[in-house]
């Protein structure tokens, strides 16, 4: 590992319209090392790297590459300097093959695709990737798509690979493969910046760790001189007390609240099953966790229970009554609440006021209507009360939803759904993208609703969340439930295998 910095960032500051994303950030990236950029969501990790990659322009500061100051205005400039970034959301053309994606924009005129297929195959072999260059991207699992992105960078002879939360979309096994690759590639002389908020990965793969909090660098440490506890303290600025699952011995003696019988949904256009033959029961006062890598049918399942998507087959029962034929409106009236994963699109109406958003899902009810008009005064008072109770940071009921931060937006949805869901509450990724304070608040709310005797479905890709809250855990893979287990009957290794689709006995 040479000491000379390959890339140096000096006093970078970046402002967005209303927030400071980075403030006076300086760091060095040395040749041949794995630098982990650690921090909570919203700490400014991605932003600073996007500045380096030319996606954002910093308001202040300098970028030095190999000791010379550079102006990077676009990813093209960055690529010329050997800097590549693998985004969280891949930029691949779904209908094209691996090779076509890799050479996209890099060839002109007439070319022989077979020749490039061979180049790509050689490149993949050199880095130990098992990839068919002629495969169509859309057919490949996410883990492989990520490898294609990496290959694309390597094909362009990138010296510095920036990976933005690369394991977020991977199964534990796929993550291990990626970690191996990272270590191999640095041994071959490349440099890797690994953006993450997961301590385990940092300890596994990094040589050096830069910790960020609130847009600032709060620590720059060598891995062998630190430990998880120190890092987590730096990251959150306070202690995290691990919330472990408190066993509930009586949940299964309670009556069944929600039941799904052989529920299937087939995509009418693609003719494939989004969810297939799913059956489970949720008792009153039980939290059923649904674990799985995202995109395995979780959202479709939640949509089906809420009534937003209709079933191809099967039945949904609420307290023993068949509600399969009831629409969303009826189901809301029956006390089925839903906290959707995409809160910007499905949870809130962003340009509307908080009061209006609180009213959104009860617009057909009579509660807020007086003489045919909306009782704004009472609604405002109710909203103000919820803002206080849920510690929402907002100027008041008249604040517009989009002016709030992600965590506070989620609290507003939570406040609304908790009141509406007298029987069932579906939480789809309730804490995704939120900071630890908000996560804790949301977890406490979910547990409080459980004690009130509601049947709760919790979908999450965060295993720690599943393990610390759920009474039982169902694992979903490609739209099928591979098994339902009691919380303490399952360990991380087992669940990891299940999430990747390995199972001895299929149900």
């Amino acid at each position, binding site marked *: 590992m040479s000491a000379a910095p390959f890339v140096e960032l000096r006093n970078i500051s970046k402002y967005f319209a209303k927030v400071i994303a980075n403030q006076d950030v300086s760091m060095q990236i040395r040749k041949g090392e794995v630098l982990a950029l650690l921090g909570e969501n919203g700490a400014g990790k991605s932003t600073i790297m996007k500045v380096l990659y030319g996606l954002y322009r910093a308001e202040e500061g300098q970028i030095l590459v190999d000791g010379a100051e550079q102006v990077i205005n676009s990813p093209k400039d960055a690529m010329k300097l050997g800097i590549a970034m693998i985004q969280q959301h891949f930029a691949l053309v779904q209908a094209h093959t691996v090779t076509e994606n890799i050479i996209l924009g890099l060839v002109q005129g007439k070319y022989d695709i077979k020749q490039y297929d061979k180049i790509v195959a050689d490149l993949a072999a050199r880095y130990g990737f098992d990839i068919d260059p002629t495969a169509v991207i859309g057919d490949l699992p996410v883990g492989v798509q990520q490898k294609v992105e990496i290959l694309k960078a390597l094909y362009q002879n990138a010296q510095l690979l920036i990976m933005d939360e690369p394991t977020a979309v991977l199964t534990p096994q796929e993550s291990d493969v990626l970690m191996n690759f990272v270590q191999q590639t640095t041994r071959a002389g490349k440099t890797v910046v690994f953006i993450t908020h997961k301590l385990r990965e940092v300890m596994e793969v990094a040589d050096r760790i830069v910790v960020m909090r609130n847009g600032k660098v709060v620590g720059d440490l060598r891995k062998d001189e630190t430990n998880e506890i120190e890092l987590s303290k730096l990251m959150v600025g306070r202690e995290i007390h691990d919330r472990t699952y408190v066993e509930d011995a009586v949940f299964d003696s309670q009556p069944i609240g929600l039941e799904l019988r052989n529920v299937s949904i087939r995509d009418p256009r693609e003719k494939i099953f989004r969810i297939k033959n799913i059956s489970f029961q949720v008792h009153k006062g039980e939290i059923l966790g649904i674990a799985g890598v995202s995109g395995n049918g979780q959202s479709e399942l939640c949509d089906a229970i809420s009534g937003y998507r209709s079933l191809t087959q099967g039945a949904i029962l609420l307290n023993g009554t068949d509600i399969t034929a009831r629409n969303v409106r009826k189901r809301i009236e029956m006390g089925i609440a839903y906290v959707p994963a995409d809160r910007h699109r499905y949870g809130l109406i962003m340009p509307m006021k908080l009061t209006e958003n609180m009213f959104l*899902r009860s617009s057909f009810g009579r509660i807020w209507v007086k003489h045919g008009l909306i009782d704004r005064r009472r609604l405002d008072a109710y909203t103000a009360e919820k803002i206080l109770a849920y510690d929402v940071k907002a100027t008041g009921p008249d604040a517009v939803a989009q002016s709030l931060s992600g965590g506070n937006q989620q609290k507003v949805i939570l406040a609304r759904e908790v009141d509406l869901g007298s029987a069932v509450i579906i939480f789809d990724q309730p804490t995704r993208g939120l900071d630890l304070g908000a996560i804790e608040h949301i977890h406490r709310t979910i547990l409080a609703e459980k004690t009130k005797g509601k049947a709760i479905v919790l979908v999450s890709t965060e295993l720690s969340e599943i393990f610390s809250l759920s009474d039982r855990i169902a694992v979903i893979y490609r739209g099928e439930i591979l098994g339902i287990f009691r919380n303490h009957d399952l360990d991380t290794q087992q669940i990891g295998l299940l999430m990747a689709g390995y199972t001895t006995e299929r149900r």
Partner: protein
Amino acid sequence: MGTLFGSLFRDSYTFADIFVKATPLMFTALAFAFTFQANLFNIGAQGQFYIGAITAVGCSLFLQDKLPGALTLVLTGVLTILLGGLWGGMIGWLKAKFNANEFLVSMMSTYVALALMNYLLRTFLMETKGEYPQTDPLDTAVWLQTIIPGTRLHTGFVLAVLTCIGIWLLLYKTPLGFRIRAVGQGKDAAAMAGINYKTLYIVAFFVSGALAAFGGFAEVNGVQHMLVQGFNPDVGAAGIGIAILANGNPIGIIFASILFGALKVGGTIMGQLSGIPSSITELMLGSVMVFVILAYFVREKMEERREKAKLKKAVSA
């Protein structure tokens, strides 16, 4: 400029005419603004206005010697709302059922309405003399009453203002209005809340069509007292401009319409007085619209810059 506005006050007839001109504009502006709240574009207010005018004149002529005047007026008004609503609702239905582009459908429906009017004016509705493509004049009994004697100001203006207030109430104070706005600003979240946006597309276009058509009724029974081929050919377009100027707010539409009415009347007088072509006011109206739209973006940009500067200062302090 001085002459333009000064001339408006030279006599009560001229002054009252501002409000006469503003009346149909309020209705067509409301028609655009209402669907706009549901994030739909109704470019066909002109056609809906004509449908209303045809219905009004047809119904009035047919009933005026059979029923008392007041009753005829009420029936005509109701029928106008119904037919105009159906005409508009059809656009919403096509959008809901086939996801047809409502912008194009509403725009083209204007030409259909225009052709329908021309056809009827040469056949069933043609004057008894059979000379021009226009109807017989209406009986005074079915005229919308004049408010101020010696002017053309009629009760249609009062109805227009009341309609603006009513639409404002509907949009901002009732659950139905809330749902329309919710669909406009977040269709998916609204659907997730059990709101059927397809139904609301039809409802919004029904109301929109009825509004524009009622403008046609007010104009025929209030001012023209007959139907002449191709009258008021620009109320639809002007309505869009007014709605944008008022930022889609029904109360704002009242004032923006009066401003447009004043410019229209002033422009005509200017033409008579000084030989300046009256089209100069149309140029002014167009510029007003362009600047209003520009101002919106400039303001947003300035706000963003100010926020950034504030942050920078806060950081260095």
